[in-house]
């Protein structure tokens, strides 16, 4: 049973902070048997990419435009700053577990 997750990491430039958190998420979830594929994007690109239908969730460090994304959306700044990091991991892990369950 594969535990594959397609993550969209969103930050202002679609590069620096989204890369930081995508890498951490891949590592941490990897330790728990998940295989995470991460794509980085800017907030303006998020809706279009999500509509393409290939992502399971969004983690962001810059605000996302208000929209119906249809997937779980999690604030990743806790991971960046270390503040509220435990709560971030809790929420993320609960979310990916549900995603995998939903895909069975």
């Amino acid at each position, binding site marked *: 049973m594969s535990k594959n997750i397609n993550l969209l990491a969103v930050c202002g*430039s679609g*590069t620096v902070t989204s*890369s930081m958190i995508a*890498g951490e998420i891949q590592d941490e979830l990897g330790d728990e048997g998940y295989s995470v594929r991460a794509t980085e994007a800017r907030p303006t690109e998020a809706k279009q990419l999500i509509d393409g239908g290939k992502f399971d969730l969004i983690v962001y460090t*810059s605000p996302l435009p208000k929209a119906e994304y249809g997937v779980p959306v999690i604030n990743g700044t806790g991971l960046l700053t270390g503040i509220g990091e435990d709560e971030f991991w809790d929420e993320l892990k609960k979310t990916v577990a549900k995603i995998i369950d939903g895909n069975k």
Partner: protein
Amino acid sequence: MNLKFEQQFIYPNLDAESYAEAIRKMSKNLLKAGFVSPEYPDQVIAREKDFPTGLVLANMNIGIPHTEAEFVSQTVVSVATLNKPVKVHSMIDPDETLQVSMMFMIAVSDPKGQVKILRELMRLFQNQDLMQKVMAENSANEIYQLLTANTVKETE
């Protein structure tokens, strides 16, 4: 490639009236060394309007100004501690403003290929002890030593 600092890009007690002014001052040596394109400082400053870079850490606020990789030819992280705090908007809530006295200007030429560097940097931010020490230092060499000693070298 590991996260490396260079003394020429470390600025203790920098005088600046604003975030933009600090960015311009920090960019001078980068431009001279050819690590960034001439548009770099303008791009970094312009980006702040839409995607501000103020971060609230556990016991201080920092700014991590940056822009797209196309304006960077060589990856480098510049560090500054400021004589006076400057105002910056919060990354996660652009309507909120913070005062920052420390800045890490991140110029990355290859974000996908240099994720390790970014993550090492992230770990430094979360080392509050280290951040306090850096704030208190007056010499570029001392800051360089502190940061270098605390950068965890990840093995491939």
